[in-house]
């Protein structure tokens, strides 16, 4: 085991870094820029049962140290994802985390069943936290009873480990984490985006066609760090932390807060080469500081695993 490798249910990672769902598509475009096998894992764009166009444009807006997006889960739908998107990725030496979404529990079950049976994905990421769709999405992520039921049902049909992606738009993330853990979740990923809005000065109306959008980037990192830290005190489930990672030091902050691996979202837009750069930078820091393994950076009591 190298100082960078981390082992999570369904995801044997060479290093703790994966691009975050929705910020890497299905790896086609950025995969043309560097070898995806350098990555610890790849989180795929949300897949829904049917193809989705998503929201009208504008879909993104810039904010201080952050951005808003309201893509609305655009994706080619389950069939095409299996027939066209997964095969090129499946042949690579990098584990896949397939993000799944839906409007009904049946949708989620169908997608989970099909994707987890392809043999191509290492684990599923249950997206119960998308703020940009009218039905489903975030409702499942803020109501503990719904979150638990959905997790249970997806776990029942899935052939691979299931991570639940949590929403920061809640007064008590520990409660949701508790119930999805009881319902059988194999891991937690957080945070999805915070709901936000920007007004277009010219019209006086919301700039995004969808009005509200999801806030990501360094602006939200303190919120993410606090939630990762809070959940680490409560559970031994693996945690994939994300929200505002731009530098290797940000990864270290998440690991210190209790994350077992991290995902990088928005930063891929600022710099599409960021993931391999971060991996090299992080490895350089461990080398420099003569750290045997990444997790040794943690203060003693912080590392539950």
């Amino acid at each position, binding site marked *: 085991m190298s100082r960078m490798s981390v082992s999570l249910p369904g995801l044997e990672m060479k290093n703790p870094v994966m691009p975050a769902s929705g910020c890497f598509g299905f790896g*086609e475009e950025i995969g043309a820029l560097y070898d995806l096998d350098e990555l610890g894992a790849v989180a795929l764009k949300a897949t829904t049962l049917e193809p*989705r166009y*998503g929201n009208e444009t504008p879909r993104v807006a*810039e904010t201080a*140290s*952050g951005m808003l997006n309201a*893509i609305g889960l655009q994706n080619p739908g389950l069939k095409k994802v299996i027939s066209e998107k997964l095969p090129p990725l499946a042949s690579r030496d990098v584990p896949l985390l397939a993000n799944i979404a839906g409007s009904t529990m049946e949708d989620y079950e169908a997608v989970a069943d099909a994707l987890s049976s392809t043999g191509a994905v290492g684990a599923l990421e249950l997206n119960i936290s998308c703020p940009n769709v009218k039905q489903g999405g975030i409702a499942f992520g803020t109501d503990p009873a719904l979150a638990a039921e959905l997790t249970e049902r997806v776990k029942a049909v899935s052939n691979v480990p299931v991570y639940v992606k949590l929403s920061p738009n809640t007064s008590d993330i520990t409660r949701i984490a508790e119930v999805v853990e009881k319902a059988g979740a194999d891991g937690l990923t957080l945070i999805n985006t915070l709901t936000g809005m920007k007004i277009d000065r010219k019209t006086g109306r919301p700039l995004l066609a969808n009005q509200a959008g999801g806030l990501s980037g360094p602006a939200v990192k303190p919120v993410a760090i606090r939630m990762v830290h809070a959940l680490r005190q409560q559970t031994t489930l693996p945690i994939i932390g994300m929200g505002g990672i731009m530098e290797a030091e940000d990864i270290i902050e998440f690991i210190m807060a209790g994350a077992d691996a991290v995902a990088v979202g928005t930063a*891929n837009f*600022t710099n599409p*080469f960021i993931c391999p750069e971060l991996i090299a930078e992080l490895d350089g820091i461990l080398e420099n500081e003569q750290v045997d393994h990444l997790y040794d950076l943690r203060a003693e009591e912080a590392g539950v695993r």
Partner: protein
Amino acid sequence: MKKENMIITTHRRIARDVYEMELEGDLVQETAGPGQFLHILPPLSDSMLLRRPISICKTDKKNSRLTIVYRAEGKGTNQLALAPVESRLDVMGPLGNGFPAADVPAGEHVLLTGGGIGVPPLYDTACNLREKGIELTTVLGFSDKGAVFYEEPFRELGDVYVATEDGSYGTAGFVTDAIAGENLFFDRIFACGPVPMLKALETAYPKARGSISLEERMGCGLGVCLACVCHSREDTDGTDYRKICSDGPVFSWGEVLL
């Protein structure tokens, strides 16, 4: 596509709030025709995460230089306007697919129609067409006289007509008014500018051959994030789309829903 720190070799104001900047770097060698764009990180700031898409206005492969022309409008482009000559700019590019200038058969007459900050990519297109010996006429639309730029450079390549919305210069009105008023003839039309202008052109000349270049707010600029999609015109079930950054920004006349 490259991401590199290009050197700013010249930088000057050429109209009200409009700046021309020349950049030097290796990515110039990768340009593949006029109408492609760069994705530029605003300099002198550490709070802006999103790059700004700016068209390539002129390419000089021999010297590894290219020119952009931009309007200082919001936060990012205003920062750009402060960047001193000889400093470096974080640039990604070239991106997207430009005007199919290479496909224009000899003997055709091309009408270039640009509105405001949509004018720059047409200049590279014009240079490209003239090099091939294609005849062209250019119609440029601006809000008012103070906003006019690049009339002279275009004039060296063919006839130029200017329209201003307030009538302070050239034809009063929109580019469509100038085209109709001057009874301009063309085999093909290349247009770039605000959506209302493009719509007016496609409505006025529904059967024209040609291409339009679109703008949309972008995230990645690479086709990854799906920030910049538009509906294709033949879309039947609402799911067929084009990505402006990677399928476009130039689309065939009538290909997408405006």
